[in-house]
């Protein structure tokens, strides 16, 4: 064979080989775009079957995921999709599966139980859901039996609602000095103290709306050195209820990453308040709230939406107090299920182990988001 022919064969063979390598053992970026899929992995083991299902969920390849299920005859593809993304618009609806873990629980020759722990990313932060899956052998392949949680049906009923609502008519953009404007609501910080944590300094506290109108509130904190010079300024971001009804109290949590409390001479707090249109509803009752001690300290309970409207996302803010009534921590969680009227939704909020021992009591407030209710 002459050199030219050898070269042609070499280039062709090398190209094919390189493509094969890139496809059978794709790189990190390629895997990311293919949703973790490669051509080597078939559902030849229970674990591989669950991993393939996880990949398909991640790619939102619902058809392929549904087709791979062993018990798909028991429900429709729509049911399957809604079980994962929520029957009502909720945090799950727009969440994307960022990654997942698969852990075999036990296995026999034709049946296995595998735990699928799914890490979702959502606009308000990541959350994790866990499903224990039965995997059954079907010929030389394994199929997942999906444990479908069916849609909650709310019994027909009439729930009267006439929540108080405040509207604010703002001045136009023009300058009209001397024309009276409505006063900003009066708010007051009723508790505040800093805590040193491994990740930095945290300023905790509570803010009260002393006024008779709803307030938009926010808290800004500035750490100052012993010489009085500012070290850093941060805001409370989402660990606060930004809309406070009259006489309502919210916790706040201001995080200063990489700061050291010993460097701090003083803290300047700036509670901000403004008029805001707001509604007094919906009322959310927190039932059976319980502090579960360390190890694995949590606060658990259930949220019950006492209104007739669906709450799409609820944000639970947990204020934890020590025996003297001082705030020791503020924990929070977003619900990944919509809150249907009068339907309890459980919550389970983690508390740092080292603080759990100090906690003597807790107080919970719930902020809500309903589609169309923000404008």
């Amino acid at each position: 064979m002459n050199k030219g022919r050898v070269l042609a064969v070499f280039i062709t063979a090398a190209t094919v080989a390189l493509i094969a390598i890139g496809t059978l053992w794709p790189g990190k970026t390629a895997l990311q775009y293919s949703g973790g899929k490669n051509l080597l992995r078939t559902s030849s083991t229970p674990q591989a079957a669950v991993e393939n299902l996880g990949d398909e969920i991640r790619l939102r390849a619902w058809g392929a995921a549904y087709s791979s299920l062993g018990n798909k005859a028991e429900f429709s593809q729509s049911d399957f999709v809604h079980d994962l993304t929520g029957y009502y618009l909720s945090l799950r609806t727009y969440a994307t599966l960022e990654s997942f873990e698969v852990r075999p629980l036990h296995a026999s020759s034709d049946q296995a139980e595998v735990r699928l722990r799914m890490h979702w990313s959502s606009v308000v932060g990541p959350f994790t859901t866990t499903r224990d899956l039965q995997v059954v052998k079907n010929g030389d392949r394994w199929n997942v039996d999906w444990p479908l949680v069916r849609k909650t049906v709310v019994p027909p009923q009439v729930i009267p609602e006439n929540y108080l609502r405040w509207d604010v008519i703002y001045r136009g953009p023009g300058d009209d000095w001397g024309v009276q404007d409505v006063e900003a609501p009066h708010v007051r910080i009723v508790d505040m103290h800093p805590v040193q944590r491994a990740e930095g300094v945290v300023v905790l506290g509570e803010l009260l709306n002393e006024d008779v109108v709803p307030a938009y509130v926010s808290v800004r904190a500035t750490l100052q050195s012993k010489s009085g010079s500012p070290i850093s300024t941060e805001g409370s971001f989402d660990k606060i209820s930004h809309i406070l009804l009259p006489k309502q109290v919210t916790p706040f949590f201001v995080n200063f990453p990489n700061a050291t409390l010993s460097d701090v001479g003083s803290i300047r707090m700036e509670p901000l308040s403004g008029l805001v249109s707001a509604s007094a509803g919906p009322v959310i009752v927190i039932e059976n709230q319980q502090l579960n001690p360390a190890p694995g300290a949590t606060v658990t309970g259930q949220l019950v939406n006492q209104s007739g409207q669906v709450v799409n996302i609820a944000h639970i803010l947990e204020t934890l107090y020590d025996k003297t009534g001082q705030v020791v921590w503020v924990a929070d969680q977003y619900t990944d299920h919509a809150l249907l009227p009068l339907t309890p939704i459980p919550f389970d909020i983690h508390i740092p182990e080292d603080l759990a021992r100090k906690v003597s009591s807790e107080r919970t407030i719930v902020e809500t988001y309903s589609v169309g209710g923000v404008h």
Partner: protein
Amino acid sequence: MERIESVAPSSRPLPISLILMAALAVHLPLMLIRLPLNSYDANFHIFFASHYLHHWFNPWNTKWYAGFSQTTYPPLPQQWVALVSHIMGLDMAYMAVQLAAILLLVVGVYRFSLLWVSPRAASFAALATVFLGSESFLVYSAGQLATTSAAPIYLNALPYLFDWIRRGSWRAFLKASVLFTAAAAAHHATLLFGSFFFAVPVLALVLLDRQGGERTSVPAFVFRTVTIVLLVGAAIAVVLLPFWIALIHYPVTQAPIPHPSRANYILSPIWGLNYFIAPYGAMILALPFIVLRGSMTVRLRPLLLGFWVAFLVGLGGTTPVGQLLLGRAFEVLTMERFTYWATLLALPFVGLLVSELIDRFRMRAVIPLALAAAFTCAFAVAWVTIRQAEGASVKVDSVAAWLNRDRHDQYRYITLGFGDKISRLAVLTDAGSVDGEWNSGRRLPELTSNGAGSLSSSKYFGQAGLDALRAMLRHADKYGLKWVIVRDPYYDPLLKFAGWRPVDMLENNTITIWSKDGVPPAVPLNAPQMPPRWQGILWGTLPFGSSILAILVVLIPGRKQEEGRGDPAFASQEDLEPGRLVS
């Protein structure tokens, strides 16, 4: 299989003027309807140009990232757009510069192909350029003005490089040096990678070339190569000095941002369609010919190897080659430009193939070739419409008007769900943003530490994107970020829970403006990256000056030997090794 003889290039080449007319016929109407404005990056270049228009000697642009330096991106095509915009406005100036690049590419491909193939084949290669899928893809879909401007300048420099190394012509040396410098001023990456994919094959060709008698002696070869490398290197170092200073002082250390051009095109077929089928088009059918002819013809082997490596790298994550050759740069660069360069390297082969097919089959070849060319071009042009970018349909005029009135522009803003329209908005508004589309220019830690692209498209970057968005909203006060302009209700819950509230709605309530109370007006950030005045003067003078110099130098008449290299062996029969097969 049968053994055939190559057909000698007996027919005359197509006149270059005719090919340029064809390029105008195809691309001028598309430019006049401003089709490239729909591409991903066109507005990005127009945005940069708009800054040069108003601040030619001050590359510090406060409209993005609370301030960033435009010295982080070679300025030449954007400065030309700014200059031409004085006559016809920014949009049409962009079209004019892009059209000029297309025409220049036709000439560049012709001259480059002449190094390898006969004039007739080179003229077909130049004609193929008009319909080249990757060119249309970059112009109408990707909007990579810098790449499509630099490549033709570079290609035009290569024949001078050949003449200098092969014959020691000082005129060629001067022309090559100036053109290489201007190419770098248009796009530094083209020069860097072009050296490997384009220049190394040309140098190899010099060693192989026996035309006109003796081979070039090794000492002469080494001397001339080193001389031009040193001179061009020094020239580029000076012309782009602020760029290098910015790069050395503030290297791009941010977390890598995913880009689909790095996907595996087999495992992700949609990206295969986007980054392989659209740019290559009917050229895919020519791949076997390219490999065979390139292997069998000794003279074409360097070109084949250049093409092959560029081809493999251009396949992104489909092969491990890109990762192996580029290392970390693989996570920073986008791969479609390698495909573009691969197609340019393939064009001499395509010209050869077309020439042979037409000489042999006449009209029976012309019709299918014309159809293939038309399909390739049409598909690549249509691709931007078939697969629209996020925000392609967004109208930002009303948003810009809102930001520009009632002193709203004393605060900064970000958009969510506007895709690449954030550049368009930045051109139209006086307000500054903490977001932007030039990832290498940004320095705000909230953006660089999360491995996501623009905040406007946060959700497409998964957790990293949303983390970056949250980090930026968390520091809204610090940056005077008061307005979040939302076109995608996906982001509403975050804004609501983080204390923002809707204050206005635009475009039939499809765009909501959210505001945060208590945010102080934006103040200029005293960033260390701000270039001193002398750098601004250099930046406004040397890169543009290099292009003017290039125009002047190219006008110097060359010796006949340089310009018309006669009728060399090129890819003719004498170079073929025995046993060449065509299936």
